[in-house]
C-alpha cells in the first residue's frame, strides 16, 4: 500500500496529495498533524530528511519537509507541506524523529523567524547573534537597503 493511501486511511480529507512527473509525492497537511505524520513516515522507512524549506508566500509561512525512503529497487521521495501563521509562526520541532533537523530548524528560525517548539538550542545559525530579534531577511516584506 502506498504512503498516500496509508495517510488517507487514517486522516481522510485532511491530507491532500499529488504526484508530479518526476515521482515526487507532495502531501499537504495541517500543522497540528505534523509531528504525528512525520513520526509515522519515520516508522515507515522514510528515514532521510534532505532538508526543510521555509518560504514566505506573503500570507503564511510555508514549510516543506523533503523526505526520502531508500529502497533496493526504487526510492520514494515525499515532500510534506504545511503552513504556519505569519504573525506568530510556531510549529513542533522534529529533532527527536530526525536529528539532522537540528541545523535546518535553526536556519529557518534565523531567516524566517519560525519558532520550533521543543528545540532546546534554538538560536541563530547564519546571522550574527547581535542582530535585532525581528530581523528575518527571507521574509517578503524585508527590503534590501539600496
Amino acid at each position: 500500500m502506498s504512503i498516500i493511501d496509508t495517510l488517507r486511511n487514517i486522516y481522510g480529507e485532511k491530507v491532500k496529495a499529488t504526484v508530479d512527473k518526476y515521482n515526487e509525492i507532495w502531501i499537504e497537511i495541517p500543522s497540528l498533524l505534523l509531528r504525528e505524520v512525520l513520526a509515522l513516515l519515520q516508522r515507515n522507512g522514510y528515514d532521510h530528511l534532505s532538508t526543510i524549506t521555509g518560504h514566505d508566500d506573503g500570507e503564511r509561512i510555508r514549510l516543506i519537509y523533503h523526505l526520502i525512503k531508500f529502497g533496493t529497487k526504487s526510492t520514494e521521495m515525499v515532500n510534506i507541506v504545511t503552513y504556519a501563521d505569519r504573525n506568530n509562526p510556531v510549529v513542533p520541532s522534529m529533532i527527536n524523529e530526525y536529528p539532522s533537523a537540528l541545523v535546518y530548524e535553526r536556519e529557518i528560525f534565523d531567516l524566517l523567524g519560525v519558532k520550533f517548539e521543543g528545540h532546546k538550542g534554538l538560536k541563530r545559525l547564519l546571522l550574527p547573534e547581535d542582530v535585532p530579534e525581528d530581523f528575518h531577511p527571507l521574509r517578503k516584506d524585508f527590503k534590501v537597503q539600496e
Partner: protein
Amino acid sequence: MSVRIPIGPIHPMLKEPINFVFYVEGETIVDAEPNIGFVHRGIEKLAETKTWFQNLYLLEKVCGICSSSHQGCYAQCAERIFEVEPPERALYIRTLMWELERLHSHLLWLGVIMHEIGFDTLFMYAWRDREKVLDLVEMISGRRVGYSINIIGGVRRDISYDMLVKAVEVANFIAERAEHYEKIILKEETVINRTQGVGYLSKADAIRLNAVGPTVRASGVKRDVRGNMPYGIYDETPFDIVIDDGCDVLARIIVRIREMVVSAEIIKWIAFQIPKSEDIKLKKITPFTKPPENEAVSRVEAPRGELFYYIKSNGSLNPERVKIRTPTLANIASIIHMVKGHYIADIPPIVAGIDPCMSCMDRVIIVDVNKEKKKVMTYDEIRRYSIKWYKNNYKVIKEERR
C-alpha cells in the same frame, strides 16, 4: 549601486571560515559545537532578484570546487519548472563534466587528508595528477574552475572528437594512479595508524544522522543519488555504488579512491556512447522566456554528497524562492558525533574526513573541562601538535587500537 546584505545559506567548503568549540577531558573530546555563518553571502535572497539565466552564474559561485554540480542541479530544477527536457547530447556533456569534477575534487581531498596526517609526498602527487583533469576541463569549457557549461535547456558549448580522446586518456591515467594510491595507502603504516578506527560512525548512526555522500557510503550504507534517484543519463550508465564497511577515516579514503576508478569508467563510457548530433540546447528557452507557475525539487550527487535544490516560480522572470542545501551542512551533525571520544590529535583527519571546507576551520578553541581554561590554537598549530603528539604516543595508541 545596490548594497548586498548578508542573507542566505552557508557553504562551509574550502577556504571558508567555520568555528568549532571542542570540550575535552584530558586528551579526549567529550563534546563539540560548530559555529557557522562567517561567510554568509545572502545568495538565496539575491537569487530572488535575478532572472532565471542570471542565476546560473550566481549559483555557480556557491562553491568553487563543485561549481558544475550546483549549476547543473539548478539548471535541472529550472528545466523541471519550465517543463522541458534538454537534448540527449547535452545530458551526456553535463554528466561528463560532473564526473570530471568528481575526479578533481576527490584528488584535491586526497591531497588535503594526506597533508593533515603529515604524509606530504602523496599530497604533492595527488595534486600533480589533479592538474591533468583541470587541463582537460579547461580544454572543454575554457576555464579551470567555474566552467559555466550548463544553461537551462542544454549546455553552452559542444564537445569535439579531440576532447573525447583526451578525456579517455585522462580517465585511464587517473584510474591507474588511483589503483596505485590504494595499494600504497593499504600498505603504508603511517596512514593506517592515523586513520584506522578514527572518526567511527556506525551504520545505524550514519542513517540516523542523515549523513550523505562518501561519509555515509564509508559506513556501509548504499546511498547515492546517481544510483537511487537517477538523473541526467545515470539510469543508462553502468556503474557500481562504492561502499565500505570500515566506518572510519580510512574507509572514507578508500571509498573516494575507488569512486575515482568508477568515475573514470563512466567518463570512458560517455566518450564512446555519446550520440552524434548538432543539438545541444533548446532554442525555445531564451533569457526572456517566462516559466509557468510551478515548483520543483532537484537532487544531484556532488563530490561531497547529496546536493539539494528547491525552486518555486510565480510565473515571472525571477524565481520566487530558491532553497539550497549543500552536503557539508548535512554532514555537520555527523562531525559532532564522530569526534566524541577521540583525541585532540584526531580532529584534523576526522573533520577533513567529510571533505568540508578545510581551511574554513581557521581557528579551534580548546576548552579543558577540568581546568576551565581556554586556549586558542590556529589550525596550523593544531596540525603540527597532532603530528608531534602521535610521534610521542605512537606505541601506546597502537596497543590500544588492537
